[in-house]
């Protein structure tokens, strides 16, 4: 379809502006991470005066970045896997069965999205401390406590999205599996799950990003050994001397895997959203 010049020009202007806005911090991150310290401490310059990769080696010594990295990976990874499995079960139940309390369940789960995190931060902290004191299970300060917390953060959205996605898969498919002798769980894993891969990938991406980027609970619920990247990165910035080139290098290092993964999977995310959340 031939679009008029007015539209083409508007489109060019809007898209250029938005692309520049989106990428500006990325440019700053990349260019500053390659600057020597005296360059990054003085006036900002668009072009680095001398290129150096030294910050990329120094970041590992200034703070224990590798440990934070492993912590984030373990916490976000485990939370994602568990959250997806639990969401698949719940969404299957809601999508395929009639039962009492179904509406109450979906409404309650969805409305937890609305709670300000600050409202349950302190009580949860107290619960974890009390469980630790009375049973010896260390939740406060442990990765386990953080995993438990994070996996519920993405759960409401995941369940909601998967319900929509499962609804869009014809019931005939899994009913046929039932007739052929599969149990309900067989039908779920052999028919519904394979048909819902885009939705499940989308939900997993969302869960991982939620956990990887969370700051509030990570800063209250962790100690020196369990600290995640979200808290660890602040280590460069709160010292008297801020090594901005190292801050930027570390930011880039922790961002690259997640951005790359996200961009690879973003098609799934749109496909998942289209079938699941946006009906």
């Amino acid at each position: 379809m031939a679009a008029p010049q007015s539209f083409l020009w508007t489109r060019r202007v809007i898209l250029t502006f938005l692309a520049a806005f989106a990428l500006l911090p990325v440019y700053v991150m990349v260019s500053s991470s390659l600057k020597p310290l005296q360059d990054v401490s003085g006036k900002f310059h668009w072009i680095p005066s001398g290129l150096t990769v030294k910050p990329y080696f120094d970041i590992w010594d200034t703070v224990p970045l590798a440990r934070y990295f492993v912590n984030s990976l373990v916490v976000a990874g485990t939370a994602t896997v568990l959250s997806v499995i639990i969401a698949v079960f719940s969404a299957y139940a809601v999508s395929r069965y009639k039962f009492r309390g179904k509406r109450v369940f979906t409404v309650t789960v969805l409305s937890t999205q609305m709670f300000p995190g600050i409202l349950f931060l302190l009580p949860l902290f107290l619960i974890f401390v009390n469980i630790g004191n009375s049973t010896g299970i260390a939740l406060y300060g442990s990765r386990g406590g953080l995993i438990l917390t994070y996996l519920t953060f993405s759960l409401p959205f995941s369940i909601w999205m998967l319900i929509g996605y499962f609804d869009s898969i014809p019931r005939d498919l899994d009913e046929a599996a039932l007739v052929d002798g599969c149990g309900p769980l067989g039908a779920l894993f052999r028919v519904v799950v394979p048909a819902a891969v885009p939705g499940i990938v989308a939900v997993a991406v969302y869960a991982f990003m939620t956990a990887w980027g969370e700051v509030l609970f990570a800063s209250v619920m962790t100690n020196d050994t369990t600290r995640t990247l979200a808290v660890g990165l602040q280590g460069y910035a709160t010292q008297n001397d801020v090594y901005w080139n190292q801050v930027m290098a570390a930011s880039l290092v922790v961002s690259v895997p997640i951005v790359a993964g996200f961009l690879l999977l973003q098609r799934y995310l749109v496909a998942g959203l289209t079938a699941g959340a946006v009906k």
Partner: protein
Amino acid sequence: MTATVTTDSRTEKSDRVTSRGTGGARRRLPRIPDRIRQGGLPYLLLLPAVLLELLVHVIPMIIGIVMSFRQLTQFYINNWGGAPWSGFDNYRIAVDVNAPIGEALLHSFFVTCVFTFFAVGLAWLFGVAAAIMLQENFRGRGFLRAIFLVPYALPVYAAVITWAFMFQRDNGLVNHVLHDQLGITDQPSFWLIGDNSIYALIVVSVWKGWPFAFLIVMAGLQNIPRELYEASAIDGAGIWQQIRKITLPALRPVNQVLVLVLFLWTFNDFNTPYVLFGKAAPENADLISIHIYQSSFVTWNFGTGSAMSVLLLLFLLVVTAVYLLITSRGRKGADA
């Protein structure tokens, strides 16, 4: 709350029924009513989610509400059940606008409202514009789409630290451009302290938020049937008319959900101001979540902090209810 607990207790009761129900299906008995055949299976499937939601959301929330009625200071932190009851004192302190605490809370509330209005408005506008401009296929579309999603994919702390660097007074990009290159400001300005901090906060929040709007609207656009555009083109409608008459009306239900979600996230946002400003935000950008965090964890007054959280939740509930009422009425009106 009680209803959720009911669901939970039902689960255990119906556990035993599960195996029988499943076995029935496996032996291919003649058709049995759904309710019996499925047995407790749905409840069993929901059990993990219900337990976790109870542990991490529902029970802490109930405790939070209970704590808001107690005089909970650092002396009682190890034995919060022993903190003396204080009735509505915490609420009275929180809403007494003539005293410092209440006055600061009200101020923080206004700041958050102004911030949310601009942050949500701009994020929504940018997201919708981007999605509509990328609706048609053209060279570079996939590339732009990937670029637009970068702010969404970047971890909050890494991205916001970068913005904090850009807003530095002496070595930041923003002052370099505004002062050195364009000469708009006489002096290099402070962005992370003082009056300008609200602008910095809005810019960062919009940058972080609009790609989500873009993503949702983009997904919504894929549900608009192509035939609508084709038919209107035959009728002689130009692209601007199509956007106005087809795209925007078709996006209305998506937009309604999107604006509500953006509102809730932005109003509750803690990560952005916390990484940008640290534990104490400048007065002009003192968002409510940071303010409550400050009241609870820095001045160790958990009772008042909890009361503030409950007030915040009530406010969000009312706004959401009114919003849903208005938009559902609007939708009914449109259908009629």
